[in-house]
């Protein structure tokens, strides 16, 4: 060690007029990282609320109608986009927490498990406040590619020969008979007089519905059940789906 190394260090500090950086700079950085983690967690909660909304508003009892097994049905209705988004947000929470002052003391699995649990709890809360459905609808209306990303869930209902039909009511003829433009832009005459439907469901033009039943003639469908079409869809998606199978 050089003689007077310590004096040399002090001399350098004086020559360069160095000063300790102010405390607020470090505090600000730390708070910013925490704020980032909290924000990412809140958005993860919202993403989970949408996932919950999509799962809970699925017609689980109808999977047999789709002609596929339960697992195949499950793979079809999984909202991959939202799950991917949730995974990215949880990774972001991990990254932020890991960069807090003592974040390194927590293991990867602890942070991931805690972040996931927190987003489940927040997601449950947000779902109960109705945010899951609202976000889904909002994305469907505002984000051009959103419906395309989730269309595989809706395509499940684009199968009239297997008794599944979905689309927008374009005209009501009366006596629960109406015209429906399906996801492939084919117009169907639907006979819905004997169909089961939620008591509050009012058959009016513009309503998005999914229908169970059977084809009884040339573009004529007899409904056994009519349910509102929840989730992505709506008039915008009618433009990109292929003709019905």
């Amino acid at each position, binding site marked *: 060690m050089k003689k007077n*190394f*310590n004096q040399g260090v002090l001399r350098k500090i004086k020559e360069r007029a160095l000063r*300790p950086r102010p405390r607020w*700079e*470090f505090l600000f950085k730390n708070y910013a990282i925490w704020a980032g983690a909290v924000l990412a967690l809140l958005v993860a909660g919202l993403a989970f609320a949408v996932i919950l909304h999509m799962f809970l508003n699925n017609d689980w009892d109808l999977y047999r109608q789709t002609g596929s097994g339960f697992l195949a049905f499950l793979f079809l209705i999984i909202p991959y986009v939202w799950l991917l988004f949730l995974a990215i947000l949880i990774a972001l929470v991990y990254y932020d927490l890991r960069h807090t002052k003592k974040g390194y003391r927590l293991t990867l699995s602890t942070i991931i498990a805690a972040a996931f649990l927190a987003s489940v709890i927040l997601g449950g809360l947000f779902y109960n406040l109705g945010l899951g459905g609202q976000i889904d609808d909002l994305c469907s209306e505002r984000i051009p590619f959103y419906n395309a990303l989730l269309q595989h869930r809706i395509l499940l209902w684009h199968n009239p020969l297997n008794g599944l039909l979905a689309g927008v009511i374009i005209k009501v003829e009366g006596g629960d008979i109406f015209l429906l433009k399906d996801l492939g832009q084919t117009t169907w005459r639907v006979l819905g007089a004997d169909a089961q439907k939620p008591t509050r469901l009012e058959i009016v033009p513009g309503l998005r519905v999914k229908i169970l039943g059977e084809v009884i003639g040339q573009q004529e469908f007899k409904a056994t059940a009519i349910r509102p079409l929840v989730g992505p869809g709506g008039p915008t998606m009618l433009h990109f789906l292929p003709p019905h199978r």
Partner: protein
Amino acid sequence: MSIKKEKCVQKTDEQLVKLTLKNQDWFFCIVRRYEGKLLGYIRRISGVGQQEAEDVLQDVFLKIYQNLNDFDPDLKFSSWIYRITHNQVISNYRKIKARPQSIFVDNENIFDGIASGLDLNREVNLRELRKVIRRALTRIDKKYREVLILKFLEEKDYQEISDILKRPSGTVAAQIKRGKEKLKKELLTQNLL
């Protein structure tokens, strides 16, 4: 104002930090207290020579001074400055990806801790054993070498190593265990034992 060496001895690290923030001359005590230890540490983890290590050490102390307000009293001060030193060495040598050719030590006895930690046959000549450990340490992965150096050569406990390397203490414990196994294997495969 210049600080008398005797005054430094009476102060704890934390007191010196507070005093330095009021008067930079007190930083002399911090430099004096740690220059030897940190210089040895820099040489051990980077494998550079004395002159180069002193240049790095000077940068380290300038960084410590500038970041004094970031010191968290929940940590040991020594852990904090070892961390800064470690990071400085990493950033200096990241580009060249240098691997030390030999592990610098100022006292060969410090290898005895590793030898007993590895549960090696003590019949082996002790001087020879120290030499081979020194050589084998340069051949194992950096992540294991780092923890073994801190554990056995710098004599830090698990929590301190965790704070210096910013790794969970469970990970540190596992890496020490694995590092010892790797080192032993290296000694055997290279016929160093």
